[in-house]
């Protein structure tokens, strides 16, 4: 049975729709009201507040902690400056992806790692060789993600951190009321946003402060359904949906490499040994076997498929994650889509798909399966630039923003 997060006393009464699901063993809100639409639009127009406590969190300490993490991760995290955060993924010896998450440099000998799946065993496998200790702090630290164009203004009201100077993927140690918190400028929506990390005992005080300060700014409590649509617009992949952790795969073909998942930009090959380096170097030369792309359904074709049955076109009201085959224009299968959503902001029907590399160029014309009136149909789709949602506010500092 899922357990409550430290924010549960606040989220439960707000969750009028009683729509919950199990996220990594915690009861997590899917949507607070019957439809997640308002929560989605809060992310894009005001601010959405989402409980992300179920993320796995680890402390990595020791004089050689940075060196050790650089060996585990495909990204050279020794390049991190103090208080900098990096998005990264990590691989097995064969260059197959194990998980993705963030690495924060809190101090010279103190790092934190967030992960989608329990990773203590993986992260501590060779820790002793580096005199590094890895501690699971997942149950001790609660986390809230505050995402949306108003998130900075709200946080500024409750904390004393200089958020105007806090750059994208940096962190600040600060206070909210009496609570000591860490604020990272990170998130899973592709929008301006922050994540607030706080000890369990101070969790409710932080929720109250953010919630009360946020209401005049249009803040809405948000659930996983809304975040799922936002992350697809932002082109972010999800462990367990768009790929599977290599150690959990029964068959080789289920595993993926960072290059296949469009995470090649994370891989720093030319540096001392790291886990999976040799395999990744080989793949960098030969090229990946498939490539993750963003597909946009051709709307006219989509409408035609429904019109054949006398129906107006219907789009799925939430992000879907049941895989669908992808074809070339002649109808031969060339890949599969793993998740997708109608983008309410861009007015486009999107899917994330893994396709043969020669089909992965932008503008490439493919087809994707659509079920219309119990009949399997193929709808034209085009490979489009990822991410589809992009806004300068996500990465910029206020002084560089136009009014």
């Amino acid at each position, binding site marked *: 049975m899922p357990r409550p997060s430290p924010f549960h006393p606040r989220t439960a009464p707000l969750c009028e729709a009683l729509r919950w699901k199990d996220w990594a063993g915690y009861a997590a809100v899917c949507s607070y*009201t019957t439809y997640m*639409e308002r929560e989605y639009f809060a992310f894009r127009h*005001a601010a959405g507040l989402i409980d992300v406590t179920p993320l796995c969190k680890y402390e990595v300490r020791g004089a050689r902690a940075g060196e050790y993490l650089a060996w585990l991760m495909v990204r050279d995290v020794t390049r991190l400056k103090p208080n900098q955060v990096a998005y990264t993924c990590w691989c097995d010896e064969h260059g197959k992806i194990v998980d993705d998450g963030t690495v924060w440099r809190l101090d010279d000998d103190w790092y934190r790692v967030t992960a989608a799946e329990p990773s203590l065993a993986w992260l501590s496998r060779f820790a002793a060789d580096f005199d590094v200790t890895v501690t699971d702090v997942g149950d001790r630290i609660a986390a809230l993600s505050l995402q949306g164009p108003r998130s900075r203004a709200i946080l500024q009201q409750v904390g004393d951190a200089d958020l105007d100077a806090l750059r994208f993927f940096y962190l600040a140690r600060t206070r909210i009321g009496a609570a000591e918190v860490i604020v990272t400028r990170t998130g899973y929506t592709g929008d301006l946003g922050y994540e607030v990390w706080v000890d369990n005992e101070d969790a409710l005080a932080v929720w109250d402060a953010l919630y009360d300060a946020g209401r005049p700014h*249009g803040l809405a409590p948000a659930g996983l359904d809304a975040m799922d649509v936002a992350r697809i617009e932002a082109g972010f992949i999800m462990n367990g949906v768009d790929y599977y952790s290599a150690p959990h795969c029964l068959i080789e073909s289920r595993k993926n490499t960072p290059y296949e998942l469009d995470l090649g930009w994370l891989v720093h090959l030319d540096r001392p040994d790291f886990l999976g380096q040799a395999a990744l170097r080989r793949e960098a030369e030969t090229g990946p076997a498939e490539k993750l792309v963003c597909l946009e359904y051709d*709307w006219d074709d989509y409408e035609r498929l429904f019109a054949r049955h006398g129906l*107006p076109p219907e789009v799925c009201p939430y992000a879907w994650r049941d895989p669908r085959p992808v074809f070339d224009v002649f109808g031969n299968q060339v890949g599969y889509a793993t998740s997708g959503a109608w983008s309410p902001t861009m*007015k486009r029907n999107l899917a994330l798909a893994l396709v043969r590399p020669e089909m992965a160029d932008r503008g490439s014309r493919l087809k994707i399966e659509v079920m219309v009136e119990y009949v399997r149909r193929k709808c034209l789709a085009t490979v489009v630039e990822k991410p589809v949602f992009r806004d300068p506010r996500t990465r910029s500092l206020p002084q560089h923003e136009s009014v």
Partner: protein
Amino acid sequence: MSQYDAIIIGGGHNGLTCAAYLARAGRKVLVLERRHVLGGAAVSEEVFPGFTFSVCSYVVSLLRPHIIRELDLARHGLQIIPLESSFVPYPDGRSLNRSADPQETRREIAGFSARDAERLDEFRVALTRMSHFVKNVIDNPAAAPGSLRPAELWQQLRLGKALKELGPDLQHLHMQLLTMSAVDFLDMWFESDQLKAPMAVSGIIGTYLGVRSPGTAYVLLHHYMGEIDGAFRSWGFARGGTGQVSNAIAGAARRYGAEIRTEAPVAEVLVRDGQAAGVVLASGEEILARNVVSNLDPHQTFLKMVDPRHFDGDFLGQIRRYKLRGSSGKVNLALDRLPEFACRPGDGPHMRGDIAIAPSIDYLEKAYDEAKYGQYSSRPYLNVVIPSLVDPSVAPPGKHVMSIFVQYAPYQHADGPAAWPEHREAFGDTVIDTLGEYMPTLKDDILHRQVLTPWDLEQQFGLTEGNIFHGELSLEQLAFLRPAAGWARYRTPLRRLWLCGSGAHPGGGIMGAPGELCAKTMLKGSQGRG
């Protein structure tokens, strides 16, 4: 030598849409806007510091989804936030909120009539099927009955086929829809006055008709189609106000190379050798172009911008008889805090949609009675939205903007249209008093107010007689009759003069369709190639 392939008079959302499509096809286009801001009636202005009003048009629903995609408007800043619900308070302290949640809506309606709650789905199915048919009509240029040209025949065949596919029941319904009043039409499904009244108002918005006037059922469908996202959906707010729709379209037009000038009022259309050849600005500057496209209403276009000698008497007669008859006003408020309804306190979902003061059919009909004789309604129909609740960019934190659409406020005031300024503040008081009956603290929460009478809409926004749709959406002025019989294809009797505003098919609302279809017609015809 003409510098431009086309000059567009007026930077309203249709003019900009037309410009964007022409520029996208490689034409050299100049848009001339009289005011300092673009958008015409789809405009956002910071009327009071910190408070941005959608001054005139305040919700988006009919903007064609393919236009959003084809012009990539989302990338140019267009974001539409759906309205969550429709709320009506009643004088007896009860209220009704209809939302996207079907079960909750059913429960709410069942509080007035259990039968009505169940029939709502049947009503929706019928109207959705009808909307689907009518969509064929509005996404194509107006049909030309009687024409034997192959393209015309093809279009009529397609329409005929679509009509046939509706089946006899819906064909009959379609005829009824075209001829009935909104109330009679709703009577076919529903019994409770409390439900029918707020539904019927869709049939009178922007018309000088009452909910019991024949023909209003069609207008009801026109609004029901409120379509965003490509699926048949509800209405929405544009982030930053409706001006952002215009700004996004302008952004697209500029990217395709269109030139846009503001504070450049056009005085007249230049006519040479019997065809439009350019414009003369109020400043005296002459600009030549191969085509002139008017985004103004038919009266402004044909009676003010062009010397009437260029038109024959029959056409001029039709245009003079074309009904504008503005019947609505607008009150915009800057609020110190969010006022509450006595019957349903708090800032729940009922506050985030549209709020109607339309408690009964008789209330609405009485409001019309007064308007018939040149008085504004002493208790008008109000359509209220509070966009700052979902879009905090339009007001300082904790403060709000409220937009109140008011009907009836007849342009033809009993004391004459020019008497409106004398009545403006009393009219504003009437609106506040009406809403104040349901929102007791409203008066104390107001920081600033802006009152727009139909006279103001004409003077400030160039909407003749204050008509928000460039002419009534009544049957005798729609489709192949809009704006005049034989001239529904954006062409005008003056060669190389085109009409691209809401006074052309398929009509008003933030739809973009007249602008788009005008541009596509121009590009198809040899005149467009210049």
